[in-house]
């Protein structure tokens, strides 16, 4: 009993965002699972996971029936001879890659390094160029292992590796702004510093102040950059969005920006490897997923792109903030955006009545938690705890400040953010708090349901279409499904079944 009360006092809600870190004993998927959606997204790729039976069994069980559709992924299953170096890694991989090349002829082979290749220190990065030369098609190495990463971060490692393979962007002479107008150049420099500024601000603010919009740059007034008007999108510097989304969703977001007169010059990744966008100094990049911090770092540091730090386009509020931020960077006055957002909220009304004042607990496993929590708070829900595997405060700076702002706007207490959570402790807290909804992995869903606690599987948020204005409804469809189910079954009297 004393244990319970200490837990209760622990979960007392705070006034500012509070960050904690627990033991890291939590359940999530292995990052190699990114193969399942990336091979579908990049249609001319082949993913080779270099690991053991454990990895293979995970893929085949987690991905269910997809395996039967002759997938473009396979295991390079390491045997005892490989581990004890009786077999030569290079020869073995050469043999397998030649076979893949012959059978499938992909435009790119992606090697996914696993825990085992890390431990036996297999030099994948060193071998890839040699094999690349031999088979005549690119080989990309991504170390998506469970030693370093969780679930969706797998995509991050793949995209970071892929960013190196994007062609070099050449600044066209005609649109080089340097010679023409120096004030505009200033605004570009300002913009490039925006990200850094945001970070600094955020770090200050977490201690005391209110976050201010980081957009104090001169580019804010649209009159100053007349060349950015929608009629002349050519003079806009290239914008590349990064993050894997189903093609339809990518198209929706692209059009959302086009409506504001902003041209998206490419996506990382595109639907085909051969269509990867050009990157380089002068290219602006913006992320669509909260878990892409490595990719963002690579794009900034290695490809010298300029990162637009924005909240993520999840929920109508997030999408609006995302579009606004991009508009602001390009010096465009957003049109009809507020109206667009309110129309979407209007259409969500039936769902909003269901979720209003209900409480949520995120156990945390896919890094979408901050954005989803922010959206749900805007929907009128109360978030007790946001568990998250890994929290990049710099990459998520704008998202975190929007979360804080949302809490203030909605007059709810700030949730606590628990990095590397401990599932055992979390379950004690869930027992104490009895939240209306727990968003959790598949390992805990059924046991919690049997104890009368309503759950939603977090994995579904990874696979469902949740980005942009159009898909806000889908998020609420997912969130309310258990609540609606409960309304149907509520009078039957068997909610606790253990």
């Amino acid at each position, binding site marked *: 009993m004393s244990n319970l009360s200490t837990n209760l006092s622990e979960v007392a809600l705070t006034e500012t965002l509070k960050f904690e870190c627990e033991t890291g004993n939590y*359940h999530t998927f*292995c990052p190699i699972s990114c193969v399942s959606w990336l091979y579908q997204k990049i249609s001319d790729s082949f993913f080779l996971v270099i690991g053991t*039976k454990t990895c293979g069994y995970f893929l085949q069980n987690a991905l269910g029936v997809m395996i039967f559709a002759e997938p473009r992924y396979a295991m390079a299953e390491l045997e*005892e001879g490989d581990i004890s170096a009786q077999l030569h890694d290079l020869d073995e991989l050469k043999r397998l890659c030649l076979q893949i090349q012959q059978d499938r002829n992909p435009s790119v082979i992606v090697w996914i390094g696993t825990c085992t290749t890390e431990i036996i220190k297999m030099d994948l990065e060193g071998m890839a160029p040699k094999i690349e030369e031999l088979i005549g098609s690119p080989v990309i190495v991504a170390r998506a292992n469970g*030693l370093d990463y969780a679930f969706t971060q797998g995509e991050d490692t793949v995209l970071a590796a892929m960013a190196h393979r994007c062609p070099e962007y050449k600044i066209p002479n005609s649109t080089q702004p340097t010679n023409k107008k120096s004030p505009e150049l200033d605004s570009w420099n300002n913009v490039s510093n925006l990200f850094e500024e945001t970070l600094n601000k955020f770090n200050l603010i977490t201690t005391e102040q209110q976050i201010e919009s980081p957009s104090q740059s001169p580019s804010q007034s649209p009159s100053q950059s007349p060349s950015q008007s929608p009629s002349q999108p050519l003079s806009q510097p290239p914008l590349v969005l990064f993050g894997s989304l189903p093609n339809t969703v990518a198209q929706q977001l692209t059009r959302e920006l086009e409506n504001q007169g902003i041209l998206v010059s490419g996506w990382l990744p595109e639907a085909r490897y051969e269509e990867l966008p050009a990157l380089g100094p002068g290219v602006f990049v913006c992320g669509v997923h909260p878990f892409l911090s490595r990719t963002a770092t690579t794009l900034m540091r290695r490809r010298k792109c300029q990162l637009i730090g924005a909240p993520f386009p999840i929920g109508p509020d997030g999408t609006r903030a995302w579009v606004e931020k991009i508009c602001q960077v390009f010096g465009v006055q957003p049109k009809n955006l507020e109206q667009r957002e309110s129309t979407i909220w209007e259409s969500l009304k039936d769902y909003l009545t269901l979720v209003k004042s209900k409480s949520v607990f995120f156990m945390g496993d896919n890094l979408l938690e901050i954005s989803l929590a922010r959206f749900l708070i805007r929907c009128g829900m109360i978030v007790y705890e946001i568990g998250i595997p890994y929290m990049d405060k710099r990459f998520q700076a704008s998202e975190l400040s929007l979360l804080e702002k949302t809490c203030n706007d909605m007059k709810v207490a700030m949730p606590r953010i628990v990095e590397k959570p401990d599932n055992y402790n979390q379950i004690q807290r869930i027992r104490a708090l009895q939240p209306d909804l727990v968003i959790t992995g598949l390992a805990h869903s059924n046991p919690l349901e*049997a104890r009368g606690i309503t759950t939603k599987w977090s994995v579904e948020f990874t696979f469902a279409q949740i980005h942009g204005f159009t898909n806000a409804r889908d998020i609420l469809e997912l969130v309310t499904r258990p609540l609606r189910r409960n309304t149907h079954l509520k009078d039957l009297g068997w909610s606790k079944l253990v």
Partner: protein
Amino acid sequence: MKLAYWMYAGPAHIGTLRVASSFKNVHAIMHAPLGDDYFNVMRSMLERERDFTPVTASIVDRHVLARGSQEKVVENITRKDQQEKPDLILLTPTCTSSILQEDLQNFVERATRNTNSDILLADVNHYRVNEFQAADRTLEQIVAFYLEKEYKSNRSFSETIQKTTQPSVNILGIFTLGFHHHHDCREIYRVLKDLGIQINQIIPEGGLIKNLKRLPNAWFNIVPYREIGLMTAKYLEKQFNMPYIGTTPMGLVETASWIRQICNLVLKLSSELQTSQLEKTHRIYSCEKYIDQQTRFVSQAAWFSRSIDCQNLTGKKALVFGDATHSAAMTKILVREMGINVCCAGTYCQQDADWFREQVQGFCDQVLITEDHTKVGNMIAQIEPAAIFGTQMERHVGKRLDIPCGVISAPIHIQNFPLSYRPFLGYEGTNQIADLVYNSFTLGMEDHLLEIFGGHDVKTVITKNLSTDQNLIWDQSAVTELQKIPGFVRKRIKRNTEKYARTKNIKEITVEVMYAAKEALAG
């Protein structure tokens, strides 16, 4: 290195975890990186388990890689000991920990000093054994550990074992995530109860560690599945002179033989325990009477195989693939009890290859032992059986080739964990199997009607030419005739006709050629 898309048996640690989570109040701690605890997902989703799966991971991360686990594993063990107060904590190595070569046994010894629970290190080599072998080994390890512990505390333990007064058995090898294990267990229980035999213990499913010391109180052991439980049975036979019955009571013939073995064993043991002669004759008599009653009237399968429905199954071609237990039993049922022609029987349990060959000898045309699902797929495509009995993988191959498939063995999906009572063993099992077989073949009147009226599908799939030989021309009447053939055999008839035409150097296929081909094949 091996290029692999799919595997029949899981990695070793899955087997160990299945043992641990089958017992009550046993907790497994995996020494594994983040994400390797997907066993919890499988158990929670497939079995629709209401309780938290008693498996946690002691996470191997960068720090562990650099400095070793140090206190981490020991801390995790002691913490779990305090949180859940399990009887036993099973430290489970994974592929990762087996190459890290940390001294896990040392962690176990250190942790034992500060815990109330017993701690064991699962003794399995990830690179040498699969899920089944690991489960078999771990179960034996746990049983041996507790019996030896008992022996250590009481030297005369073996002498003081009290056999139960009534004949009783242990059922070894009922597992979580096993193929219809719960239903099978209930059915075995029912039959044994009918025979007047008590259940001493069922392990590991639902078993308690502290009861293990009473395992030798039973008269003998029953191992329903060959893959898991046999090592434990052999251990108990060696140490405690307990006989075991390794027959799988699947199908009428095998169930009868299983019951006879049990009765004979009971008689033999009870004569050792000096039961009266009268009792004995009564038992033999009632055993045979029971088998007869059950076979002819309780089970519908015997009658089914006599009924005219089953006549249509005669000589139909089938392929069987699965684990050794189910594949062998199914092959025998199809051939011996239903008159079906099993062209190929196979298993992925390579460790049991010899046993399997011996079992199906004389029942099938060829034996296929492989872990490669593409080989099985090719075999199916080549044989073109009328039905497949296999795992979920064979079901999908069947879907692609338009051949029906009944699932008889793991690996399986959530639909193979039915809520309703679906045993594969015992007399109710024979009914289930008969239904499965019957529903898998499209037959009976439907078959005839389709043939007479030209089928109820009007898809003109005939234009899709599979043949690479362009010289063959089908004339209009032959095409029409071909369309009358039911969809599911049409492709095969077309191929056979073309094969025939090619051998006879016929360029144009007419209705006459089709009939000639049919006659030639029939002869």
